[in-house]
């Protein structure tokens, strides 16, 4: 009898370790691969490198193009975040606090956006972006990304705003504070947790997005990092060590960001699922 809990603990540890290895091994191999020569990579793809060759990482870090990819992505993602936070929170505020004719209809109209993947209309979207003259323009990426994040952002904001204490608004109303001023002066400052959660999700989505920049951005000096990475891969198709170094350097900021923002990522996943 006494060995039973021991066995269970052991089994649990084994299952968790195997699952963790499944997740981590490819990442570690990628990171280490950037230090190996092609020959070393071939003979031992998972072991430690015999000598740590920094040149592949160094080459990429000294490549101004690499930094320009990251800069483009950062600009696009931050713009999409700011624009989504502003537009979605304003709309959600109206839906949460002001009753007016047609508000339910308008809300369900916006929530349609949660239903389908944005790839469905990528061709007409491409034509629209082209006709608006936004091809090879960051706005051609930022605006559609914002539009596609709108629905889920509005849902999260609306339910948060509805939970804010109502007495606050009544007090402000007596003082003669308008809805618009109340939003900027009270609602937004009180909503930092939800702003951070929505912002984190929009940022990750935009930062990782491949299809839209692929369609919109043509010139290489404007590439976002996923486009740059695929371009790099195309150029060094057999030199895995260089590619792995490149991939590692893009994963690294993602992991750091993940550790810093995990609270909001978990909050977003939980909020989205518990509310359902």
């Amino acid at each position, binding site marked *: 009898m006494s060995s039973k809990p021991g066995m269970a603990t052991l089994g649990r540890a084994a299952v968790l370790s195997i*699952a963790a290895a499944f997740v981590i091994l490819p990442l570690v191999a990628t990171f280490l691969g950037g230090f190996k020569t092609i020959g070393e990579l071939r003979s031992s793809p998972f072991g430690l490198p015999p000598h740590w060759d920094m040149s592949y990482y160094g080459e990429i870090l000294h490549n101004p193009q690499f930094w320009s990819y990251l800069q483009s992505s950062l600009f696009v993602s931050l713009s999409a975040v700011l624009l989504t936070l502003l537009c*979605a929170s304003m709309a959600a505020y109206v839906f949460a606090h002001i009753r007016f004719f047609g508000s339910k209809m308008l809300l369900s109209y916006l929530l349609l956006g949660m239903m389908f*993947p944005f790839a*469905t209309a990528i061709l007409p979207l491409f034509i629209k972006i082209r006709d608006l003259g936004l091809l090879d323009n960051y706005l051609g990426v930022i605006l559609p990304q914002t539009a596609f994040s709108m629905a889920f952002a509005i849902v999260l904001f609306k339910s948060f705003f509805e939970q804010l204490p109502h007495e606050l608004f009544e007090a402000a109303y007596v003082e003669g504070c308008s*809805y618009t001023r109340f939003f900027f002066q009270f609602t937004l400052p009180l909503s930092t947790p939800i702003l951070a959660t929505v912002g984190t999700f929009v940022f990750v989505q935009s930062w990782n997005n*491949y299809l839209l920049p692929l369609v919109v951005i043509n010139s290489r000096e404007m590439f976002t990092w996923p486009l740059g990475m695929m371009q790099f891969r195309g150029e060094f198709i057999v030199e895995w060590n260089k590619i792995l170094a490149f991939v590692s350097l893009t994963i690294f900021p993602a992991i750091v960001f993940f550790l810093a923002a995990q609270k909001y990522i978990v909050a977003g996943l939980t909020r989205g699922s518990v509310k359902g």
Partner: protein
Amino acid sequence: MYRDGKLTTILLFLPPALLLFTLFVVTPILNAAHLSLYRWSGFGEVTDYVGLKNYSTLFAHSIFHQSMWNSVKIILASILLQIPLALGLALLIYRKTPTNTLFRLVFLAPYILAEIASGLIWSFMFDGDYGVSAQVASALSMPSFYILADKQFAFLAIITVIVWKYFGFHMMIFIAALQSVPGELLEAASLDCRKSWQIVAFVKLPLISHAIKLSVFFSIIGSLQVFDIIIPLTNGGPSNSTHSIVSYLYTFGLTRLNVGYGSAVGVALFLFCVFTALTYKRLVIREGKSA
């Protein structure tokens, strides 16, 4: 007239969201429905009306059948492999302890990595000259085996990457649900049931059934959107056997600027999504709520 400025607020706050959404989400979809009835290369006037010809070509195209079937395979793999894995791990680590938190972070990490980077990492892992498969082959002193170029196994490799990337997401949904189960309930259950599997089967799982249904829903919608992962892994090959619906759309509609045809694929995907979402909601989620 409105001292509190309700009307001003509405007129100021709603239009940006509505405008962006209408311009970049709704009209493209309506345009897709319209353009799918034409043959158009994207330049000049749209005049070449072909009726439903794009659709009949599409539904007769064997590669499209394959890509539909591939999407179904991803859905099945999510439900039969990914969700049970996520659920099992969630049950193991849902309690709030430092080690559990660490495991949770590790399992969730692939979820935030870019699909395109994940695909590249795994295309190295599956490379017949380097990664895992090379190691396994040489250990068995077999000739190198290129999984991603193999018609039989390439899609299995893609499914592996999808599970790797998304099981943490589903696990988090289950953990959130398990943590919201009241503790007294579990204590009471542990008095009645001797074995822990009984508590899992008869108490915990029924209590989080809503989360499971939701997770299946996300799986289905997600499976229909797979694209970025496939590009670095197989790019739809070998001989177009590993396309998803979206990569099919990309390859046969977008890269050839077959606007009409690509729109027809988009409309088909759209209808497929809406149909699945509505049916699933009606059959599974609603029913669960009323019960």
